[in-house]
């Protein structure tokens, strides 16, 4: 911690974001960046609003990898990015729903998260009361004699989250899938406003339960960046340990569930044994099966005991034994391969255009991994290989998960060997001087999670934006299912395993 040196520095006139500064741009600058996104010169990381400004985060081809810009829009409108770069479209629709800022020149003006049921329009800035009804929603038209529509959801057949899928099919073949999401919108943006850092951390941990560790880590890193908090080395290792355990548990769960959707239940039964053991070790080591609320700004709330470290090592050895068997079971079962190979194809061009992260991106040739690209601690000190494929189908998304399992096992071993002794949390408090901003990009099991926040001098969160990797994966699912049969949709959907809750906020 070096608050002392910060205090002597001149008070910044405009809150500056750490570790990546936020710059103000004018309309010309905003449009030039939108055009460069469309040309593929940089990648869109997120787009979010406030009462009278919009912010955009981008991945740059060279250092520093992240760039954040702001456009003031006192008139309540901004030039649309989605109009020229489609990946921004749903983010802009969400900005319009929540903050009332109009994207001018947007290609899609329909509401996205707002279904007309809140009793309010633009709840996060100048809310207007409305009669709470249900807005009609115009699905995109499909034309042709033999086409029929299949509406699915929001309540699905399995134990999964709610969302609506509208299939237009020609016989068995899907001609178009259109998603309608927003059913689990909980108003997280507004709940964050005015929350203490502790409460905000609890909310962040519940944006998407399967990624609770990754979200807590991303939130903590953004707070620590804003306040220049030095996290003790042991805490940094323990956090990475939890993040990798979460990744392992989710990947085994996914691999089993994908195979189960191809009617191969044996794989799911076996994978769930591995998943269950990981969760039990997590509960015994950290006191919670999903490790919820175990990471906090400044460090971790629990330490790893010697005997738990030994139990984790024994578990890693057992998983290392099981993994090749599961790989053989997957790869040698030809009836299963028949379902997964060539199904749900996503092209490399689309994965790059949407800057799609996680296994979906990596299975289609976009190898971005925040652990490598941003290189937050302790990953630069660890050796591991991230998976990659260019096949782009369901099969590739399973193989990439197997590759990531191997990488995580490697990482967990190194952490258990190298984790230094020492304190697990830094003593710190908001220094009550001026408003601060911080940002973080953290690799969850599903892909990179982006967090940007602004905290007032008294330690109250003024705005916190949390961007789930699903924002850039959901649209690709629509592309993946095209020309596949309706019956393969569960398989494709599971191979993506996008978060509804993380997306709907």
């Amino acid at each position: 911690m070096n608050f002392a040196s910060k205090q002597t520095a001149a008070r910044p006139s405009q809150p500056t974001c750490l570790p990546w500064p936020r710059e103000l741009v004018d309309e010309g600058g905003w449009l030039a960046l939108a055009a460069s996104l469309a040309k593929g010169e940089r990648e869109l990381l997120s787009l979010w609003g406030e009462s009278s400004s919009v912010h955009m985060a981008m991945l740059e081809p060279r250092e520093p990898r992240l760039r954040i810009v702001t456009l003031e829009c006192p008139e309540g409108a901004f030039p649309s990015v989605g109009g020229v770069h489609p990946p921004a479209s749903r983010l802009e629709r969400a900005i319009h729903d929540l903050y009332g800022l109009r994207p001018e020149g947007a290609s899609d003006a329909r509401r996205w998260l707002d279904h007309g049921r809140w009793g309010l329009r633009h709840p996060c800035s100048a809310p207007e009361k409305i009669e709470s009804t249900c807005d009609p929603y115009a699905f995109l038209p499909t034309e042709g004699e033999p086409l029929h529509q299949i509406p699915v959801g929001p309540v699905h057949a399995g134990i999964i989250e709610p969302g609506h899928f509208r299939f237009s099919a020609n016989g068995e073949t899907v001609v178009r899938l259109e998603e309608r999401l927003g059913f689990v919108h909980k108003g997280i943006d507004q709940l964050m406003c005015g929350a203490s850092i502790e409460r905000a951390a609890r909310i962040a941990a519940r944006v998407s339960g399967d990624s609770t560790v990754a979200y807590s880590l991303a939130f903590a890193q953004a707070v620590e960046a804003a306040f220049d908090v030095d996290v003790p080395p042991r805490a940094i290792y323990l956090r990475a340990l939890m993040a990798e355990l979460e990744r392992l548990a989710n990947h085994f769960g996914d691999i089993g569930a994908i195979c189960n959707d191809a009617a191969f239940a044996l794989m799911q039964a076996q994978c769930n044994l591995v998943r269950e053991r990981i969760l039990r070790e997590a509960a015994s080591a950290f006191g919670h099966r999903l490790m919820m609320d175990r990471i906090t700004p400044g460090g971790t709330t629990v330490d790893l005991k010697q005997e738990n470290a030994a139990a984790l090592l024994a578990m890693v050895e057992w998983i290392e034994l099981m993994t090749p068997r599961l790989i053989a079971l997957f790869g040698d079962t030809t009836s299963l391969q028949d379902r997964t190979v060539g199904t749900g194809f996503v092209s490399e061009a689309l994965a790059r255009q949407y800057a799609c992260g996680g296994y979906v991106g990596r299975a289609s040739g976009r190898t971005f991994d925040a652990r490598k690209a941003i290189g937050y601690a302790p990953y630069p000190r660890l050796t591991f290989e991230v998976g990659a494929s260019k096949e782009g189908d369901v099969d590739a998304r399973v193989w990439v998960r197997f590759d990531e399992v191997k990488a995580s096992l490697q990482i967990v071993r190194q952490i258990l060997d190298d984790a230094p002794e020492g304190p697990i949390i830094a003593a710190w408090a908001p220094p009550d001087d001026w408003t601060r901003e911080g940002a973080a990009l953290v690799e969850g099991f599903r892909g990179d999670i982006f967090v940007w926040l602004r905290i007032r001098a008294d330690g109250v969160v003024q705005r916190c934006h949390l961007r789930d990797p699903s924002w850039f994966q959901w649209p690709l699912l629509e592309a993946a299912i095209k020309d596949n049969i309706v019956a393969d949709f569960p398989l494709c959907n599971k191979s993506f395993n996008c978060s509804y809750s993380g997306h709907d906020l």
Partner: protein
Amino acid sequence: MQKFLLQGLLRSALTERAPTPDTASMAELGYTLGRTARQKLGRSLSIREVDAGSCNGCELEIHALNNAYYDLERFGLRFVASPRHADVLLVTGPVTKNMREALERTYAATPDPKWVIAVGDCAFDGGVFCNSYACVGAVAKVVPVDLHIRGCPPDPTTLLKGLIAFVENME
């Protein structure tokens, strides 16, 4: 594949002994389950899970009930794909306003006699999401609830304790 199947035959079952039913749940249930309903349905119950806005943490633990360690089906409980086949709705989440009608319609589509079990702290009182413009809050504000299983999320053993208390009360 043969190796896995053979191993499955040779080793003893992984399924663990059932936990004793939760006493608090027993007390809550005392009033709710009618005798005639018990006679009609016996111990066999079909469950329809409805996510009414959860963060998906509860779903992960509900899923775990199907793994070899917990093996929910041995208690006569099974998950079904439609409310029309269900006796019990297992509802999670702080009931988002965008899901309210879907939950009401799912409840209406479930044939009588039917019960509702609210799972998780959000389903109990909205949890960390209470007082949001986008959430109704407790499941009980939307449909009548017979049993609450608390936790964020409740672990599979807690879920089992609640569910066993539920079937025990049906006999």
